[in-house]
C-alpha cells in the first residue's frame, strides 16, 4: 500500500512539474527569461545525462562536454556542408555518439576512481583539440555559423518560444524515462554497481556491459542536447565544449544532488541563472564559483535536493511536535 501511494505521489509531482514547464512561458511573453529557460532546458538534459552515469552508476566523467560538442558539430556539419535535414542530422548525431561511446566505453570503464576521471578528462581534451584544429570541417576556433533551425513540416523552430517547447518536451520525456529507469531492475543494478562493483558482480550483475550501456545512453542524450543547442543557436564554437564546461556540468549534478533527476534540473537552473546574479561581482565571480564547489561538496554532499528534503522533513517534524504539544497542552 505504501509503495502504491509513494508511486502516486511521484506521478503527481512529475505532472505538476510538466504543467509548470508548459505553462510558464504564457506568463513571460516577450521576456528574455524565455531565452534563459531554453538554455536551462538544454543544461537539464545534459545534467540528467551525466547524472545517469555519475549518480546512478557512480562513474566519474570529466569529459562530457565532448559528447555535447560532438553532437553539436555532427549536426552542424551535416546540415551546413551536406544540406541534410536538421531533424535527420539530429538522429544521426545521437546515434553516432552512442556508437562511439559504446566502442570506447569498454576500455575506459575498466578504470576506476581517479584514473577514470583522468581518462575522461583526456578524452574531452582530445575532442576539443580536434574541434579546434580541423578548420576545414568544423570552422576551427572561429566557429561554425549558419546552422539551420529545426523544421517539422511547415513549422520552423526559429523563435525562443518554439525552441523552448521543442527542447522542454524532449527534456521532460528524457526525465520521465530516467526516473522510470531508476525504479526498474536496471536502476537497482546500477545502484548496486555504484555501491560495490565486486558485490554486484557476485550477485550476478553483468557490471561491465551495464556500465557501457549506461555510458552509451548518457552519450546519446548529451549528443541530442548538442544538436538541439546547435540548431537553436545557429552558431557553435569549440570554446563552448571544453574542460570548463565539463566542470560546469559536473557542478550542476553535484549541486542538484547525485542520483536525483529533479536535482539535475535544479543544478542546471541554478548554474544557468547564477551568472546573472554574479554579474555584479565582475571578476570575483570565478572566486565565488570555486568556493561554491568546495563548500557544497564538503557540507552538502547530497546536493540541494537532499537539503530541500531535509528542510521539508524538519518542518514536518516541527509541525507534528507542535501539534503534539498543543494536543498535550
Amino acid at each position: 500500500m505504501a509503495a502504491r501511494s509513494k508511486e502516486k505521489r511521484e506521478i503527481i509531482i512529475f505532472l505538476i512539474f510538466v504543467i509548470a514547464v508548459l505553462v510558464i512561458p504564457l506568463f513571460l511573453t516577450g521576456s528574455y527569461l524565455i531565452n534563459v529557460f531554453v538554455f536551462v532546458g538544454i543544461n537539464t538534459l545534459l545534467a540528467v545525462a551525466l547524472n545517469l552515469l555519475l549518480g546512478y552508476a557512480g562513474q566519474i566523467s570529466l569529459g562530457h562536454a565532448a559528447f555535447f560538442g560532438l553532437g553539436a558539430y555532427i549536426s552542424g556539419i551535416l546540415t551546413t556542408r551536406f544540406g541534410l535535414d536538421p531533424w535527420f542530422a539530429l538522429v544521426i548525431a545521437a546515434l553516432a555518439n552512442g556508437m562511439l561511446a559504446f566502442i570506447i566505453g569498454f576500455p575506459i570503464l575498466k578504470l576506476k576512481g581517479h584514473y577514470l576521471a583522468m581518462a575522461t578528462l583526456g578524452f574531452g581534451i582530445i575532442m576539443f583539440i580536434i574541434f579546434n584544429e580541423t578548420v576545414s570541417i568544423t570552422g576551427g576556433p572561429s566557429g561554425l555559423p549558419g546552422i539551420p533551425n529545426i523544421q517539422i513540416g511547415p513549422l520552423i523552430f526559429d523563435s525562443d518560444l518554439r525552441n523552448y517547447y521543442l527542447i522542454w518536451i524532449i527534456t521532460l520525456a528524457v526525465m520521465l524515462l530516467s526516473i522510470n529507469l531508476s525504479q526498474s531492475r536496471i536502476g537497482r543494478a546500477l545502484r548496486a554497481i555504484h555501491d560495490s562493483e565486486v558485490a554486484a558482480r557476485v550477485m550476478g550483475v553483468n557490471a561491465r556491459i551495464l556500465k557501457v550501456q549506461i555510458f552509451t545512453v548518457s552519450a546519446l542524450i548529451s549528443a541530442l542536447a548538442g544538436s538541439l543547442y546547435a540548431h537553436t543557436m545557429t552558431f557553435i564554437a569549440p570554446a563552448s565544449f571544453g574542460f570548463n564546461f565539463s566542470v560546469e556540468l559536473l557542478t550542476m549534478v553535484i549541486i542538484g544532488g547525485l542520483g536525483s533527476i529533479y536535482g539535475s534540473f535544479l543544478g542546471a537552473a541554478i548554474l544557468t541563472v547564477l551568472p546573472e546574479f554574479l554579474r555584479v561581482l565582475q571578476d570575483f565571480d570565478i572566486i565565488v564559483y570555486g568556493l561554491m564547489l568546495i563548500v557544497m561538496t564538503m557540507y552538502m554532499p547530497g546536493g540541494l535536493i537532499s537539503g530541500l528534503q531535509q528542510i521539508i522533513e524538519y518542518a514536518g517534524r516541527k509541525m507534528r511536535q507542535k501539534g503534539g504539544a498543543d494536543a498535550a497542552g
Partner: protein
Amino acid sequence: MDSSRQLIQYILSGLYNGAIYALIGFGFAIIHNATGIINFAQGEFVMLGGMLTIFFLAVLNLPLLPSIILAILFSTVAGVAFERLAIRPLKNAKPLIMVIITIGASILIRGIVMVVGGKNTHAVPAFSGNDPLYIAGATIMPQHLWIFAITILIIIANRIFFNFSITGKAMRACAYNSQAASLVGIDVKTMVLISFVISSAIGSMAGIIIAPLTMTSYDVGIMLGLKGFCAVIIGGMSSGLGTVMGGLILGLLESLGAGYISASYKDAIAFIMLLLILFIRPEGLFSKKETERV
C-alpha cells in the same frame, strides 16, 4: 647534416620540456602516494611559484634570490592551508568528492590570483642571462641547464628523503597501507600534511625555474598541471626515476611529434599517451604491477 641538427634540437627541446613535466609530476606522485588523492590543484602551485616571484621582485623590489625563497615559502603555506581546510576534514571521502574539491580549489586559487594580480602575463628575469648555448649544433638557453640541474637535485633529494630518513620511510609506509602504518605508531595526519608541504614546494620551484622561459600569468597552471599528471601516469607514480622517465618520454614525444608530424596536435599527444597507458598498462611503464585489492 641539417636534418641531424634538427633531430638533436628536437631531442634537447623534448628533454628540457620533459624535465619540467617530471618536476610537476613529482608533486602529483608524492601526494597520491601519501593520500591516494589526485590533487588537481597541483598546477596552481606551479603558477603560484612564478606569480609570487614576480610579486616580490616587481612590487616589493626585492632581489632575485630572496624573492624566489619567499615565493616558495608562501606557496608552501598555501599548500598547507589547502590541506588543512579542504583535505583534512574529508578523511575518507570518495574519489569523486576529492576530485571536485581539488578542482574547486584550483578554480579558487586561480580566481584569487587573477583578481589580485590581474590577467596579464609577466616576464621573469633569467637566472644567468639570455645568451644561447650550443651543444652539438643545437641550442639551449642557460635557464634550461638550471632546469636540468634542479630536476636532478630534486630527484636526489627525494631519493635520500624517502629511502634514508625516518619521515620519508614513514611516508612510504603510509602509501602502502595507512592503517598498518598508524598501527605501528606513524601519525598519518602529519604525513599527509608533509606530503602537501613537499608537493607545493616542489611545484612552486618548478614554476619559478620555468617562468623566465615561459613567462607567467594566472592561468599557466592548468595545462602544465595536466601534462605533469600525464607524465606520472606514463611513468608510474613512484616519485622517483619512474616519474622522471615518464616526463622525459612525454617531452620527447611532444617535440618529435610536433617536428615530424604536426604541431597543431602537439597537446593531443600528451592525452593520447595518457589514454593509451591507462588502457594498456595503468600502473605506468616503470612501475611494478600491483594486484588490485578488492
